[in-house]
Structure formats: C-alpha cells, structure tokens
C-alpha cells in the first residue's frame, strides 16, 4: 500500500509538450480516475507513473520514495492494459504467475496466490486455457488477475473496459469497484468515459491539453465545475452554454440576461457590468414547473424530441438561435416547432467567462 505524489510532472516528446506540470497527491488506498478527451495526456501520465515513459521534468514519488529513474519492476505497481496484453503462448495460470516466477517466489506460494486471485475473479475453471480461448471479458479478468497476484501497492488501469461491449462493461465496472473495496489498494484508472469516472472514483482528475483542469470528488466536479471545460465534460447530456450579458453586479452575485433569458441573479465573481458571459445550465436542471418567481427562465421553440420512456430529452432553439437541451425525468409529449419555456434554479446554474 502506498500513496503517490506528483510534483510539476512534465513530459516532452521532441518539441511537443504532452504533460505540462502536473501536481497531484494521491492518498494510500484512494481510487483516482484520470479523465479527459483523447490526446489530453491521461494515458501518458499513467505510463509515466508505471515507468513505461521517461519523466522529462518534475518528481514522482510512490510510497514516499522518489522513483523518476526506477525501472517499472522496482516501483511496486501493476498495470492492466486496454489491449489486455496477455502472453498468448502461456495459459491463464502461467500468465498470472509470470511475474512471481521471475522473482523466484516459492512454488507453493505462487500456487496459493494464483488460486486466490482466480477465486476472486471467478477464473478457476479457465486456468488451463490460453488467452485465445477466452472471451473479451474473461481476458480482462485474467489481466486483472495478473495484477492482483503480484500484490502491488498501486494498481494502474489504462482504459481497461473500452474493448468490451456495453453490458459487460457495466459488470466489469462493478467488479473493479468491488475489488477496490476488497483489496483496499491504491488504484489509478484512466478512462475517457465519464460514467466510469463518476461511478468508480474517490477522486477525479480532469485533464485537457496536458494540464489538470480540476481535481475533486465526482459530485463536487458535477456540482461545482472549476471551468467551462470541466462543466462540459462531466455530465451527460452535456451542459448547456448560453450567451448572456451582465447587467448588474452586487457582492457575490451577478445578474445576467439575454434575448431568450429573463434577468436572473447567479452566485459568481469576477464579472463587471456589460461583460459577455456564458450561462451554464445542465439539461437535467431545466424544468417546466415547480419553481418560484426567483427562478431563471429560457424560452425557445422545440426542434427535436427523444422519448426514452423514463426520460424525455428535448432539443430546442432559443430566440438568439442557440441550441439547448432539457432532460425531463418523465415521458412527456412535445410538439416540434411549438414554443416552450424552461425554468431553472439559479443556484444550479454556473457563469463562465465568454
């Protein structure tokens, strides 16, 4: 078991800066998810922690020891790859015991550990098979088993579920959550899937362009996104961003309006009267009724309706020709082209610099 410290960690490939000074503290036993769009550097950061990529600048410590220049095997980590990376010429048992045979662990102990991991992951009937004889989900479990057997202090997962189909992905997600509870080990998990990030993480690190955009608990990121990028990235459907103009500033609150939005007062700082700004409201917070007079209101006309049974997603166009979505938590009929007004609690809205 170990915590990690990343201090001003940098990575350059030639003249390209991929990781631009990442500071991060991961506590022992924490489940941390790196999330971001493709090319944001999340996998590179994970590979730097694993020792598969050299660190250009900054310091990486695992369990208090600086390990910038340590070989992967000296770092006390285990990694699960997106492609599973199972040894195709070895059986499941040999795949899982590979690392232990290399460091000359006694045979009886290897056997005990492999069987224990196989029990946890329900792989017992498959131990004699080769990877080619397994399904995708089984292969992923073997890859996880290979990591467990080594009893590492830190588990690294590089998009482990992205090669699986949707149903299996959900099962494996729960399995990984259960595993984290059972083993209590530090886990770092890379994904571009924000549902995985929200459901698994104790702490999410949102990366964009090699820079940390925000670090925090999933709900904190959802409710208090630090910037427009995080606000747009976390949450599905994506947060609506509507152009507004600041018409008044008082203390910690700002009044904004636009041709399609009635004047509304939001808690925000750093704006001056006359500024242009972006009003962010999640589709789930746009409601048709049940809000009092202080609530904001957006008007527009319905352009598209998706009826999902338990939820209705309404796409509408505002008076200033902006597109926005509202997610109504029930089945409801909307006529395309008809005028519509949604209201929102100003406390659930965010204001970003335009």
């Amino acid at each position: 078991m170990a915590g990690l410290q990343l201090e001003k960690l940098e990575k350059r490939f030639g003249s390209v800066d991929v990781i631009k000074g990442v500071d991060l503290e991961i506590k022992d036993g924490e489940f941390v998810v790196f999330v971001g769009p493709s090319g944001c550097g999340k996998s590179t950061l994970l590979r730097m922690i694993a020792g598969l990529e050299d660190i250009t600048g900054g310091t990486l410590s695992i369990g208090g020891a600086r390990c910038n220049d340590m070989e992967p095997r000296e770092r006390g980590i285990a990694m699960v790859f997106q492609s599973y990376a199972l040894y195709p010429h070895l059986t499941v048992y040999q795949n899982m015991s590979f690392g232990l045979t290399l460091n000359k662990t006694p045979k009886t102990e290897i056997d005990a550990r492999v069987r224990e991991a196989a029990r946890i992951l329900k792989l017992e009937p498959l131990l004699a098979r080769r990877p080619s004889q397994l399904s995708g989900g089984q292969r992923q479990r073997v890859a996880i088993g290979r990591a467990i057997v080594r009893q590492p202090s830190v588990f690294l997962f590089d998009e482990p579920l992205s090669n699986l189909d949707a149903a299996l992905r959900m099962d494996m997600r729960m399995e990984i959550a259960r595993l984290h509870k059972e083993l209590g080990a530090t886990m770092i998990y890379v994904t571009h899937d924000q549902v995985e990030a929200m459901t698994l993480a104790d702490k999410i690190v949102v990366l964009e362009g090699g820079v940390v955009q925000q670090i925090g608990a999933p709900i904190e990121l959802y409710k208090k996104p630090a910037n427009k990028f995080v606000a747009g990235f976390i949450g599905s459907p994506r947060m609506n961003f509507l152009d507004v103009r600041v018409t008044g500033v008082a203390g910690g609150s700002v009044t904004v309006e636009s041709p399609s939005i009635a004047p509304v007062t939001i808690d925000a700082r750093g704006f001056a009267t006359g500024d242009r700004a972006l009003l962010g409201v999640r589709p789930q917070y746009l409601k048709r009724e049940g809000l009092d007079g202080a609530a904001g209101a957006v008007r527009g006309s319905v352009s598209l309706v998706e009826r999902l049974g338990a939820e209705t997603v309404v796409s509408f166009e505002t008076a200033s020709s902006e597109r926005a979505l509202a997610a109504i938590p029930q089945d409801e009929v909307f006529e395309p082209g008809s005028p519509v007004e949604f209201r929102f609690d100003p406390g659930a809205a965010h204001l970003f610099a335009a």
Partner: protein
Amino acid sequence: MRTRNLLAAIGKTVAVAAMLFWSLFPIAFIVMSSLKPGQDIFAVPPRYVFEPTFEHYVSLWQQWGAFFDGLLNSTIITAGATVIAIAGSTFAGYVYSRNSSRMLDASVLFLIVVRLIPPIVVTLPLFPIVNVLGLNDTHAIMMVLYATFFVSLGTVLMRTFIDQIPRELDEAAEIDGAGRLTVLRRVIVPLAAPGILAVAVFVVVFAWNEYLFAFIFTSTRAKTAPLVISEMIGSIDGVDWGILFAASTVQLAPVLLFVVFMNRYLVAGLTAGATKG
C-alpha cells in the same frame, strides 16, 4: 461460361504440371540414376524401367571416405552457422523492431545492400585476413562466414516477425519484473518462433549447399561435402557417374527432407509482413 471454366482448369493443371516437372525432374534424374546399373545411366533412349541397385552407394562408401568426412564437416558447420545466424538475427531484429532512430532506420538499407554485393567481392579480400588470424580451414571460420552472410536477411526477417508482436507484451513483462533479456527469452522468442524457423531454413539450405566460400577457405580439415563431390568430377581415373549420383543423392536428401518438413515456416518467412496479421 462452362467452356471458359474448363479451359481455365486445364490451363491451371498444365501450368502446375510444368512447374512440377521443372523442379522435380533434376531431383528424380539424380535419384534414379544413382540406382541404375552403370551402363543404363546415360542409355539412349533413357530407361525408365530397370533393376534398382545399391552398388554405387557401396562403392561410394568404399572408395570415397572423404565424402563422409565432408558430410560430417557440413553438418557441424551448418549447425554452427544456423545457431549463430539465429542468435544474431533475433537480437538485432528485436533491437530494430523495438527502437527507432534515424541511424537505425538508415542502417536497415545497408543490411539489404550488403546482400547485393557479389560474394566473391567480399570473399577474396577476406582470405589474407583469415590467414593471418590462423582461421583458414577451420569449422569456426566457415560457421562465422555463413552466419554473417545470412544475419542481414535474417535480421530484416526477424524484425518483421517481432513487429507483429504487440509492444504492450514487452511492457506487461517489464512491469511483471522482466529485464530486456528476459522479455526476449520468455516472451519474444516463443512468439517469434515461426520467424526463427524460417531463418533457420534459409541458413541451413545455404550453408549445406554453399560451394564458393568452402572452396576458398577450406582445404582438408573443414572440407565440406559439395567440395568432395566436385572432386569426383575432376578425378584422375575419369568420372564414375554412378558414384557421383549416389553422393549427390546423399547430399540432397537431408536438406530436401528438412525443407519439406519446414515448408510452412519457409512460406511464412517469405510472406512475413505482406499483410497485417
């Protein structure tokens, strides 16, 4: 439509028959001639029905002990050259596959260029060097020479094979605690085995049949079987064709069996990298 199919089928059959005749005729001729009584070998018209005899093989054994010494030398040299070439090609192929730099990429071209130089151009200047080193007429120098000649092609071949092994396997093994050599031994070599066998086939066939290097660098101790066969033609008591064909058959048999047995690896080697597997 049907006639066209029929014509195509006939055309294919004829083409395959022609290819088979082209490649099998010399082999059949040598083997059959070695079993014919002496006067029948060059009989006109050729005799296809005859009483097989092993008299030439008996004479070969009695009169040409040197040939069997040559076979032993050929075996030792071929085995040694194969081991060296495989080791060299695998190590180099691994490096080429897993690293990339401008120098490395450029040097691949030189590996191929080396193969284009006529062997004699390389061989003659080597002679004084080999002499000074006192390696003339030794098994060791023949092994090294043959291996060297094939390490270039072998390296390119092994690189292609190793390129097909995902790099994540190296990384997974590194995280599992393997060093570079262990990755090579426990992961790369088992998975690149078909490539290693393909290289082996090339080297074995080359080293077993090679004549020019052996002619220049060996005289007695390390003389290989092809040299002894050539001596049979230049023999002062005239050529005994029966014995010559018997020796040729003995020389041909092991390498023919080996190639037939390894056939699928040979094809794999020739087409490696042609399509992404």
